[in-house]
């Protein structure tokens, strides 16, 4: 029974971690103020 409980704790922790990570997601950021280029840049 204790082994089952330990396994359940491990499984729940893994699920919780992944759910939290995906819920936080990746930052959206803001639209770049840089223009759409109409001249040839000298370097990248």
């Amino acid at each position, binding site marked *: 029974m204790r082994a089952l409980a*330990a*396994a359940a704790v*491990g499984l729940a922790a893994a699920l919780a971690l992944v759910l939290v990570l995906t819920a936080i997601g990746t930052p959206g950021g803001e*639209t770049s103020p840089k223009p759409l280029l109409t001249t040839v840049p000298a370097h*990248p």
Partner: protein
Amino acid sequence: MRRKASLVLLAFAVFFTALSPLMRWYAFPRLAKIPPSQYQTMVLEAKPATLIDYGTMKAKKVPKVSIVETLKGNVAASDRIEKTAGRDVVVWDTLTHVADPEGKMVSQIPERYIFDAHSQEPVHATGEMVDGDQVRRDGIEYKWPFLTEKRDYAYFDAQTRTSAPIHYRGTRTFHGLEVYYFEQTIPWTKVPLPKKMPVKGITPESVEKMGTTRWYTTKRMFWVDPVTGAPVNGEEVHKEELRGGQLLPGGGKVTAFAGDVKMRPDYVESTVALVKSQRTLVLLLTSYLPWGFLVLGAVLLAFSLRLEARSRRPRGDGEAHDAASAPESGPGTREIVSGSP
């Protein structure tokens, strides 16, 4: 004490083993996404090239034509579209600016490309366009999906405003990366004139009124990193002609632009460097972490079982005696047996 340790190890073994598939099949599709705020530039060159001289309506050789492409993520537009699309969306406002050797504008074509941030699948929303013309993309453009497959994809051609297959032609090595090589040929097709023409007074409408039409063909080649789906090199053998009408009487035709367009070497270097850094992050989610967690889980499970086995050695053995003397060891041993598969 040993029993507690084995239970803790078991919990960690299950934690890491469960994390392995969760990371690959749950977290990866939700975390690996094109950022909506991306800003990227690219310069391609055709050396030499053929350009039309609108004064004489004749083709002339020039040493170089540069094509500057800018991709700019429009965060406000993607936020707005996401509300109705129900998924993460990226909106790229792009400009393809073609310049002659003196830097004068030859043509400018703006686009709005809307797509799913993970799968690269096109998303159809108001504002999707090429050079002001509303379009409905069926295929990918600019970038392939993460974990690109060895198969043909539908690729959107901005000149013809249609999608056509881009064929997988094998695996190549490019700057130390194993890449997939794709090729697409667009046969001679009548296409619209760019809204922005290089000569004042000449508009697409005025050219069309004279009955002159624009035709185009291209062979498009991409070398794509299959992990990130990002092209690390691109090339186009591109030809455009103006045909017929009052400008070219008697069914005449003239080359408007022709050249073998290749990525400028410094942009190839910076793109390869960017892709190499990004592919590590993708591999972390799809390979390194899932396999690492799986191995770690197996090792922890082995340690847990070993500890448990040592705690259950028969009396007479010193360690078993110690374990048996621990208050929680007796009943727990039976429980582990009954709880084990």
